[in-house]
């Protein structure tokens, strides 16, 4: 179908369309309901809900719970913990996996197929398959003076390393596919002209992969921000936890006030939602890059 005949097909309102929209409106509201319910609880003072019950008409909505949850839990501190892990992890993952992808896409087809297999399969493993030895390894590695704990265990560095190692599997796969779709002559010609391999990678290939890199950066930021498992196991000091995992401790502290817990949980979702809304297209394309054939 061409773009030209689309407007002509805009039919008068058909009952099927009305039905479709009704279905979609009702279902999407049902889908948002748990989040909206949490938002409502977070906006109501505890005194009011404990007196009137949660299913009641709110007398007064305030952001008091949000400010209180933010200040009392020292959330800013935990967000900084997350940034200290996430920013280097995202950059390093993209840097390292783009180099492997470049190698895989441009040289040594046979070796590279196995390399690609190793990376991709590694990324599909459940984290729990490797966690026991990883935990022991992190306890064994002494890094006096480099990390505050003196070990890989309980350090931001340890979290960065496992994120990079684990996520690079996915990124190598996506980036190598993206690099392979670049015309071969491009790099061939530069090589003939005497360009070094590094120049080929940094100045010719990478700039052409910017859309894929942007999509992956968005995806990685959200995944690493949302990570719960690695930090729960590999961080022991509550103060060193990234914000998503710290949530678990915070909720224990405030379990008597569900409204406050709701506010805290929703606060930690704000950065993810902000990144998602700002970079929606990159996020979705990143998620579907590996799948389907679009």
């Amino acid at each position, binding site marked *: 179908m061409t773009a030209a005949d689309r407007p002509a097909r805009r039919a008068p309102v058909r009952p099927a369309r009305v039905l*479709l*929209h009704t279905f979609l409106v009702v279902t*999407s509201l049902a*889908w*948002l309901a*748990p*989040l909206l*319910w*949490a938002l409502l*609880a977070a906006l109501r003072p505890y005194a009011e809900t404990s007196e009137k019950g*949660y*299913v009641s008409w709110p007398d007064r909505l305030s952001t008091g719970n949000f400010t209180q949850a933010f200040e009392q839990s020292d959330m800013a501190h935990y967000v900084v913990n997350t940034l200290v892990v996430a920013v280097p992890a995202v950059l390093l993952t993209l840097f390292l996996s783009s180099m*492997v992808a470049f190698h895989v896409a*441009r040289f040594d*087809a046979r070796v590279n197929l196995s*390399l690609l*297999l190793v990376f991709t*399969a*590694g990324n*599909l*493993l*459940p*984290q*729990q*398959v*490797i*966690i*026991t*030895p990883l*935990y022991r390894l992190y306890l064994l590695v002494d890094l006096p003076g480099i990390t505050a704990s003196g070990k890989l265990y309980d350090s931001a560095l340890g979290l960065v*390393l496992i994120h990079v190692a*684990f996520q690079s599997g996915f990124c190598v*796969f996506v980036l190598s*596919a993206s690099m*392979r779709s670049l015309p071969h002559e491009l*790099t*061939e010609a530069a090589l*003939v002209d005497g360009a*070094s391999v590094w120049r080929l990678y940094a100045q010719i290939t990478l700039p052409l992969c910017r859309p894929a890199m942007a999509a992956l950066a968005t*995806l990685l930021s959200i995944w690493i921000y949302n*990570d*719960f498992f690695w930090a*729960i196991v590999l961080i022991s000091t509550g103060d060193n936890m990234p914000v998503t*995992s710290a*949530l*678990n401790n915070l909720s224990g502290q405030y379990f008597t006030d*569900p409204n406050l*817990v*709701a506010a*805290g*949980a929703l606060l*930690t979702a704000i950065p*993810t*939602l902000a990144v998602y809304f700002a970079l929606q297209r990159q996020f*979705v394309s990143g998620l*579907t890059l590996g*799948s*389907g*054939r*679009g």
Partner: protein
Amino acid sequence: MSAPTETDEPPRAAPTAPPPGAPPAGPTGHRRLLTRRDRITLALMAGVPALLHVALVWLTALASVALAFTTWDGIGFDTIHWVGLRNFRELFTTNPQFWPAVEHNVVWFAVLILLPTPFGLFLALQLDKRVRFSRVYQTAFFLPVVVSLAVIGFVWQLVYNPDTGLINSLVGANRPGHYIDWIGDPDLNLWAILVAASWRHTGYMMILYLAGLKSVDPALREAAALDGADEWQTFRHVVLPALRPTNTVVLVVTVIESLRAFDLVFVFNKGAHGTELLSILVTDNIIGESSRIGYGSAIAVVLLLISLAVIIPYLVATFRTERRG
């Protein structure tokens, strides 16, 4: 793909072959033109990241296998003792949590593949009909995939809380003597958590299928419409066959997500009675009260074998088509 972390870890799309339009790799030609320095650069470019990945992911996976045949208290290497299959024997015969955990993982997969997956496909089919406000609807369904599983756990606790939760308040079960304990009751809690997991999985599947539907040839649909095929027939004979690659990805992603399931359960009730999962049992042997390294590794090996049984055939098939391409 992490598949993703997903779980966790978040969710992730599994890889498939690159678009068929991609030129075949004929890259060996480059080699002749390389200087020595180039070769060293190249080796480092692939070697350093590969070393990191192999050391932290594959060597640790192998170490899990090795440790599964030992006992170790974690203090010094000389306390590692070979015990053969004892950990496995104990796991299969005497551990009261192992078989329930396996069953729950299987139930988790069965529910995800039977309910939210088809529903996600259904939503994708509806949203693919050039609906107005399609973006808005998509966002609503997709929001649970963006938010962390930990946050989802807390949000759903507000729904399930026996005293203050939405459900009990609505049905009047939030009074002493009438409580429905969605989180504590071992007959209910797995299903309660699965509702939350399905809520999230639906949006993920919808996005994968929406991407897959773009590959359905519009000309074929037009032809089917001209031949007088109704919506169901078009779906059955035109759309579904074109979605085969997407279905494979969906299957792999769903298996992996079911094996990785952890965060939600941990936030809900730490995998207590009724919600044991293999991933939880492994973690209990690290940060739980009874840390048994060899035993925890044996559970990890079970997880590893199940995942490899899915991952390897999938990747072999994927890369075979790629090579042919």
